[in-house]
């Protein structure tokens, strides 16, 4: 397998007269979990659909698992996993029945390194649906349904998995369970994952690398820590003197704090220096773009 799972060069997309993507470049290395972040309408879903081969691009070069998604065949399709938003399909089918059936499509594509498909019972256990295995899909809760979607997405043991806003509409409990599932997947299977989200905490938790897409351009590309550091010049110092609470944003937190002690000494209480996190970086970048 090559080191690069997907490569995008100067990708452009235009609907009618509106440009949605203005030439974006990035690559996804094998084994990496990459989060595509951005406000609504930034072009996240368009980008992921182009990579999945569901949408034809206007211009640019896209290579996914060594092939152009627009012209790739069933063999290529068998190496991808897709989990999209809002599935409601196969409501009458039973969980294990559907997974076994869809798995059978992949049997022909097993290789010496990758056995396909996933064993049904094992897969159901992995996504925590053993108790629901013989239930009709229509009777599953939202969170269970989503885990089934993931199971379907990975039933063929994909080399590259796409997750499009996988946790939108989840309660915190379901979200945590889902994150654990993705961790299990990436740890055990060394799967390469591209996920879109507008949940920053989620990106921070799951992704090795974050791409921020705003207004059809990649405005940042780096690990969550790197991106947070980019803004770390900006920090916020909070303290209390004589019961009075103060907040001061500064570029030089250390120097400021030293001055603070020099001035007030022991009277400084509840001192807190807060460096920017991914969320601050994200908001700053998006704000900058929107100006």
């Amino acid at each position, binding site marked *: 397998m090559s080191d690069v799972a997907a490569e995008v060069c100067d990708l452009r997309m235009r609907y009618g007269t509106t440009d949605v993507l203005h030439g974006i470049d990035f690559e996804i290395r094998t084994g990496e979990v990459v989060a595509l972040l951005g406000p609504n309408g930034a072009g996240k879903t368009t980008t992921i659909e182009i990579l999945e081969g*569901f949408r034809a691009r206007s211009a640019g070069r896209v290579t996914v698992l060594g092939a152009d998604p627009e012209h790739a065949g069933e063999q290529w399709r068998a190496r991808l996993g897709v989990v999209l938003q809002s599935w409601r399909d196969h409501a009458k089918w039973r969980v294990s029945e559907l997974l076994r059936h869809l798995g059978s499509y992949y049997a022909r594509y097993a290789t010496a390194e990758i056995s396909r498909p996933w064993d049904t019972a094992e897969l159901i256990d992995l996504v925590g649906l053993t108790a629901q295995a013989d239930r009709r899909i229509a009777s599953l809760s939202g969170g269970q349904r989503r885990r089934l979607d993931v199971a379907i997405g990975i039933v063929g043991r994909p080399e590259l998995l796409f997750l499009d806003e996988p946790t939108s509409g989840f309660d915190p409990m379901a979200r945590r369970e889902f994150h654990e599932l993705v961790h299990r997947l990436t740890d055990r299977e060394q799967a390469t994952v591209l996920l879109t989200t507008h949940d920053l905490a989620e990106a921070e938790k799951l992704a090795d690398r974050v791409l921020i897409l705003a207004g059809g351009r990649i405005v940042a590309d780096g690990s969550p820590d790197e991106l947070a550091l980019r803004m770390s010049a900006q920090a916020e110092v909070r303290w209390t003197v004589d019961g009075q609470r103060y907040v001061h944003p500064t570029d030089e937190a250390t120097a400021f704090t030293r001055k603070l002690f020099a001035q007030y000494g022991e009277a400084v209480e509840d001192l807190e220096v807060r460096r920017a996190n991914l969320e601050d970086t994200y908001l700053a970048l998006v704000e900058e773009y929107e100006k």
Partner: protein
Amino acid sequence: MNATSVVRLGLARGGLELRHAFTYLPDLLVGLFIPLIQILVLLLMRGHHVPGTTFSLGSLTLPSIIGVSFAFGGMIGVAAQLMTDREDGTLLRAKATPSGMSAYVLGKITVSSATTLMGLVITLILGLAAFPGVSLTAGGFATLAWVAVLGLLATIPLGITLGSLIPNPRFFALVMLPFGGLVALSGIFYPITHLAGWLQGIGQVFPMYWLGLGMRAALLPSGLASVEIDGSWRLPYVFLALTLWAVLGLAAAPPVLRRMARRESGSRVAARRERAMLRPT
């Protein structure tokens, strides 16, 4: 993937869907509703006579109803399922799976052929048992067989084409209304010869008339051909008309379906879902 394994996947899919059709109560009730109404109507018509004869109107209508059930199951049924499956993401799922679209279509053909043929057998048994004059000779059986096969070929591809072309289930009435009109024009409940000449002409364009005529030829005594156009079952024309529709459907369905499938994506399914939720109920 080679063709045989795709066929195997399609048949497996059809088999599973068929099982759901018989074990999922809401579907079963809907599925049984129309046949029960048909049987009721037929039983009520038993006492009436075909004009100018002493033959039961119910017995004349029973084979025609079989013809309608082919048009209904093959065309309307398949079109409706295609639309539902596009709405709920089943088609997109098929698209995301290797060879998924081919297996999906084969599965649909399997289900719709099987349910239509089951309907045929049940109505036939009912007809032979309770409707005087309905009978199945060796020659009749041969006619029944080829009309049935051609009937499936003439209707299912049309259903796939229609289901792919109609962008939104809200437009489904646009199919159902003409369908109802066609039943009236196709000599199903009353001999077509009692319609005005130009209406007979319209009726004879569509496969439903020919399906009914073929089924009547297979199951009714030859004397009854007297109430048909030209006083004949016109089997060569039945063959010709159904073959023509089959060729037309088989030529149109694959490109139309491919075009529709190519345009499917997650955001389209999501957008439709949003529209559906905004729709007043």
